[in-house]
């Protein structure tokens, strides 16, 4: 794999039959482009309508979170994780807390684990809804976006009631969660789950069967399992090639091992497979939520026994969990202080994006947005 930020020279050809001279062209997409959902630049070289080379340029949203974290104590880092993948901040909150808790060997009360799991699964649905809506918008359909955001709004309202913020939650703490569920909240989530279950078929009615949509996605952006492994892809990007790998099942964390759910897998490896997988994942998340809400403990602590100053012992640790976009991991090297010596995030969007130049090569320019969208990146996470 070759990493390049500057495109190679443009080539010129003269047609032997007609004598007409044609030239490749550079097209700059972004950094401010609606289909990139953030600030992401793509320099594509096109020959007519065929992409011959694509060079992604990232870093416009780089804030140096990992370096900043070295100067912050562990509790202070949690709000920074909200701003990595801001579409799914609950999973980011969790992975950092989980890493520190693993290092310190902390016990998490059962009720806190349930609240965390419910928050994470709701966030997964919200994240997939954002993806669904904006992806369809990229493809050229306006109304699915409105339906998706209408339903996502309900989840955000639930989060707002739970922790007082709609996107940057800062909800989890090392050892538990900040807030208990407010009175009646669990029932509201139950209602939402039932509502969403009814809503899903209409999503399929609206979009999935649409012939134009199918033609635009089938067989586009295809890759096989080996390529996915070589690029270290994860999440739906990996499962669309037939590899059944979901950390919630394969390396259970939190309390995922108590619930019954499937890991949807496809073998086609194209955009359509990724689309269907994400839709199926919403269904599975609803299944997990249903069970979790049924078993939700009626009382209990929401914070474990945590020392006043959080100082993980000397050493290092790496934990990973299944975020909506793939595996998110945190590596912490501690020297026994209240601040990490080094902290590294393995961000699924960043890893998944690496395959883009290969997927775009030889594609028609009209498919560019369909392929980029199907990777499901969040630039806050790509650039960290």
């Amino acid at each position, binding site marked *: 794999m070759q990493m390049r930020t500057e495109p190679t020279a443009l080539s010129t050809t003269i047609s032997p039959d007609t004598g007409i001279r044609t030239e490749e062209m550079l097209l700059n997409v972004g950094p401010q482009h609606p289909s990139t959902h953030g600030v992401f630049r793509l320099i594509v070289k096109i020959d007519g309508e065929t992409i011959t080379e694509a060079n992604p340029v990232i870093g416009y949203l780089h804030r140096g979170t990992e370096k900043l974290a070295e100067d912050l104590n562990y509790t202070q880092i949690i709000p920074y994780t909200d701003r990595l993948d801001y579409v799914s901040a609950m999973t980011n909150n969790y992975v950092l807390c989980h890493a520190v808790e693993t290092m310190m060997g902390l016990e998490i009360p059962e009720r806190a684990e349930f609240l965390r799991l419910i928050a994470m699964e709701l966030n997964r649905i919200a994240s997939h809804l954002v993806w669904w809506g904006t992806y369809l918008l990229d493809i050229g359909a306006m109304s699915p976006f409105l339906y998706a955001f209408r339903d996502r709004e309900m989840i955000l309202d639930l989060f*707002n009631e*739970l922790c*007082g913020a709609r996107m*940057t939650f800062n909800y989890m703490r090392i050892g538990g969660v900040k807030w208990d569920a407010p009175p009646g909240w669990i029932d509201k989530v139950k209602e939402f789950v039932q509502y969403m279950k009814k809503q899903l078929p*209409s999503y399929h009615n609206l979009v999935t069967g*649409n012939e134009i949509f199918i033609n635009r996605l089938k067989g586009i952006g295809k890759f096989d399992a080996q390529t996915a492994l070589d690029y270290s892809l994860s999440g739906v990007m990996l499962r669309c090639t037939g590899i059944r790998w979901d950390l919630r099942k394969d390396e259970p964390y939190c309390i995922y091992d108590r619930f019954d759910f499937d890991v949807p897998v496809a073998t086609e490896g194209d955009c359509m497979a990724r689309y269907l997988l994400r839709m199926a994942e919403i269904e599975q998340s609803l299944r997990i939520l249903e069970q979790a809400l049924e078993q939700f403990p009626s009382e209990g602590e929401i914070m474990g026994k945590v020392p006043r100053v959080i100082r993980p012992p000397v050493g290092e640790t790496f934990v990973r969990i299944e975020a909506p976009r793939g595996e998110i991991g945190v590596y912490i090297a501690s020297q026994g202080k209240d601040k990490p010596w080094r902290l590294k995030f393995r961000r699924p969007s960043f890893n998944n994006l690496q395959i883009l130049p290969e997927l775009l090569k030889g594609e028609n320019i009209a498919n560019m947005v369909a392929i980029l969208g199907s990777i499901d990146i969040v630039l806050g996470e790509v650039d960290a």
Partner: protein
Amino acid sequence: MLGFAKGLGYTLKKLSEKKVTHSYPDVPYPMPPRFRGIQHFSPEKCIVCNQCARICPTQCIQLTGKPHPDPEKKGKIIDTYDINFEICILCDLCTEVCPTEAIVMTNNFELAAYSRDELYKDLKWLDDNNTNVREEN
């Protein structure tokens, strides 16, 4: 053509349903009790322990104390208290650590300003910002 027609049918069906949009700002948008808007500060409660300034991840709280005017009493009272709201990320940590609930959240979120200077909130502003104060902090 069938899938296409199905989708269209769904859209048509939705036409007659109740609107889900909210005519904000004509109708105020209520926020739940835990919502984080901007802080309210009560100078008489503050014991100048500095915990809020220390926990703030963006270092946007600046405070100074002065000796208690009553020489009989020990400790300090607050002299100046500023929040640089330009960089406050509303993480809720200051309100969480304050032992006396001198700094608490309010539900007020309409904070757009014409100049950056207006976003420097001083003690007086924060003290006067005493509506919709959050009960649990």
